[in-house]
């Protein structure tokens, strides 16, 4: 008995409180994501719903409407709704429950996205969901909930065993009592335009499959992504599957060139069809630069690479195996899968940028010839032989239609046609000595034999006599 009491006391002495606080979720975690990205994050739920309904088939007829006003944020879809059972057990948990089946190929994964977004926007939210067999309504007043000791939310209406046509299913989320700063963003046209642009890019594949995404009454067109492909210009296609450690993660990489566009150039990284990074032109992907202090096998991005396009697609039934961050705004740099993929991306980037560098040399050489008034280069037949022309003539194919090759295939740049690289020499000498040299070269005045010529002839004379004639 005595022992029990002292054991209890010693236990109390050793106890350290490590329980989470609501404060952490309501006001800390929301700082890691911008409002803009959190709205995109909310679209993920609708896209996941579409995927549950249609898999990789057509999403035609499915839609999401986002409407923003001074005092209300609304998102409504017809993508199947949230099953009551999923709502009760998993959908509103803070953090993903490891017991949740991992075979859904979702975008949502961490169990933070939806709550974080709702907390980010305002103090009150309502969710109405209808599936083919059940429906529920959930209303949360965040300020009230914060006061309570318990963490549970309570459904206000629940119906199960219903029979509803798929067309009438869906989820509606309404947020009111905005937090500071939210109202001004949600009513700012420029902010809304940025949101549209980003949604076009991030959910490009869902839109391309036929889903309608409408933001404040404007429906989004998918952003066209492609690669040039012809008989002598083929993108590299690399496929790999990461096994071990859970559900296999499949990787598909397509690398090549497209139209010159400094804003679209770079690497695009997709996880389960959702763009998480890109177009990236930084060291987050391959453009390390490197120099004296750190090593980089790929140079820093430069506008000379504005034709470069690389796409990496990761797919996995278990979304938590994918190398993305919780904000889905980047890749998890420490993920072993990402580190391996990044090396593959670097290996595939090198030949493309080497080619773009050669093209640049070719272009410079031709411009030099033009300035020198050489007519030959204007010859149409010769022009058609130029790699640059072959690149321009190659059509841009949509990504799904790209065939590709095991490695990047490109037209040959005829280096023979390029002049040897030149350097500029400049030096000062006393005028009397230069005049003396000019006289020895047979010149009489600066007009007759310019100083530049004197220097150049002196150099040639030296090499003729001292060089090995190579």
């Amino acid at each position, binding site marked *: 008995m005595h022992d029990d009491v002292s054991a209890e006391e010693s236990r109390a002495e050793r106890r350290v409180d490590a329980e989470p606080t609501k404060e952490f979720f309501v006001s800390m975690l929301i700082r890691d994501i911008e409002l803009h990205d959190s709205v995109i994050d909310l679209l993920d739920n609708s896209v996941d719903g579409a995927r549950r309904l249609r898999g990789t088939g057509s999403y035609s007829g499915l839609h999401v409407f986002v409407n923003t006003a001074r005092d209300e944020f609304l998102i409504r879809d017809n993508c199947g709704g949230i099953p009551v059972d999923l709502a009760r057990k998993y959908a509103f948990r803070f953090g993903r429950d490891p017991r949740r089946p991992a075979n859904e190929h979702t975008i949502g994964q961490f169990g933070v996205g939806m709550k974080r977004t709702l907390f980010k926007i305002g103090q009150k939210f309502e969710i109405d969901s209808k599936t083919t067999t059940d429906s529920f309504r959930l209303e949360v007043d965040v300020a009230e909930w914060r006061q309570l000791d318990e963490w549970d939310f309570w459904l206000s209406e629940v119906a199960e065993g219903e029979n509803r046509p798929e067309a009438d299913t869906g989820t509606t989320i309404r947020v009111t009592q905005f937090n500071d700063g939210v109202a001004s963003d949600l009513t700012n046209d420029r902010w809304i335009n940025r949101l549209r642009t980003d949604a076009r890019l991030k959910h490009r594949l869902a839109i391309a499959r036929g889903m309608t995404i409408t933001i404040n009454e404007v429906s989004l067109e998918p952003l066209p992504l492609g690669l040039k492909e012809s008989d002598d210009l083929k993108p*590299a296609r690399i496929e790999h599957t*990461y096994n*071990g450690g859970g559900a296999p993660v499949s990787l598909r990489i397509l690398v090549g060139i497209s139209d010159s566009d400094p804003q679209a150039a770079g690497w695009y990284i997709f996880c389960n069809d959702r763009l998480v990074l890109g177009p990236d032109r930084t060291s987050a992907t391959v453009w390390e630069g*490197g*120099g*004296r*202090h*750190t*090593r*980089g*096998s790929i140079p820093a991005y430069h506008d000379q690479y504005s034709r470069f396009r690389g796409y990496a697609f990761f797919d996995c039934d278990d979304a938590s195996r994918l190398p993305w961050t919780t904000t889905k705004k980047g890749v998890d740099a420490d993920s*072993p*899968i990402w*580190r*391996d993929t*990044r*090396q*593959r991306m*670097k*290996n*595939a980037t*090198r*030949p493309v940028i*080497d080619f773009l560098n050669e093209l640049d040399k070719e272009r410079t050489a031709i411009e030099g010839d033009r300035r020198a008034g050489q007519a030959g280069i204007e010859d149409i037949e010769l022009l058609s032989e130029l790699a640059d022309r072959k690149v321009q003539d190659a059509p841009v194919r949509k990504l799904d239609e790209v065939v590709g090759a*095991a*490695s*990047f295939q490109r037209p040959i740049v005829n*280096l*023979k046609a390029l002049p040897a690289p030149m350097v500029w020499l400049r030096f000062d000498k006393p005028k009397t000595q230069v005049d003396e040299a000019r006289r020895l070269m047979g010149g009489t005045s600066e007009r007759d034999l310019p100083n530049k010529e004197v220097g150049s002839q002196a150099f040639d004379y030296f090499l003729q006599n001292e060089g090995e004639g*190579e």
Partner: protein
Amino acid sequence: MPSYRHIHYALRPAKNVERKLIVETMQRLSRIVDVPRMRYVGMGSVYFADFSLFHRRLGISEMHSIEHAGTEALQERLKFNRPYHTNLHFTVTSDALPTIPWDMPSLVWLDYDGKLSDRILTDLEIVVSTCSVPTVLVVTVNVEPGHHEGRYDDFVSNVSEELLPAYVRSDADLAGRKMGDVSRNVMSVLVHDSLAIRNGVLSPEERILAPQLLHFRYKDGARMLTVAWLLHSANWQERVASCNLSELPFTSQGDEPFEISVPKLTVRETLHLDSQLPASGTISSPGVAAADLTAYSRLYRYLPSFVDADL
């Protein structure tokens, strides 16, 4: 200027010996690897000396030579000289290496004329990150320290400080032989770093190890360094051990190199020494320095003999 314009390859005695040492290493590995079915990836220049030797002595028949040939004339020359249906890649190594399928065990010899550079390290990364195992990766680089002022800056501008051992801070740390020590160290860090990335997604038994096999220094003109690693999966450790590679006197797992220094001896002297070899004790020949005698007894099996023949 590429080195083939300087000197006929066969006349570089240390290089000649080096090729034969690689052959002997591969013959030892043939206890566990089907060497004739390996792929050879090299940089054949116009002489293709390594290609001829590896085909004849090792039976390797799938061979790829990478030689950056920007002019049609050089391409024609390479095509004319290639032995045994060698596949030719007329582009820089970092562009050619990703196009090799890497679907079979390989012997790769990246035999550069130049000093360690960013491009060379990139090539190492490509091979280490994509090769099938087992693969023998051999790298040769120039390790002339260069002028004593500014060599540190030159080196880090190519290689970057993050790969350098912490003690290397100044020109003096790259003097003499140290340029070779540091170059080997940098390559070794890079190989193991790339391997760590690759191993991150492999199961424990699939993980790849890369013990060093060879570490040569020699000087036909410039000081050169050659390092070779055997990339093999973790579950091959016992098999690799069964080859007893360390029995070969020229293999080296560590910092200590095997020097390929070819003694300059007359034909009569070599015949006289050969009559005493193999020997467990000392050998002698009138007036020949002890260092040359030691060098000869270590290398005599691999030394070329040059004859001025009218062919």
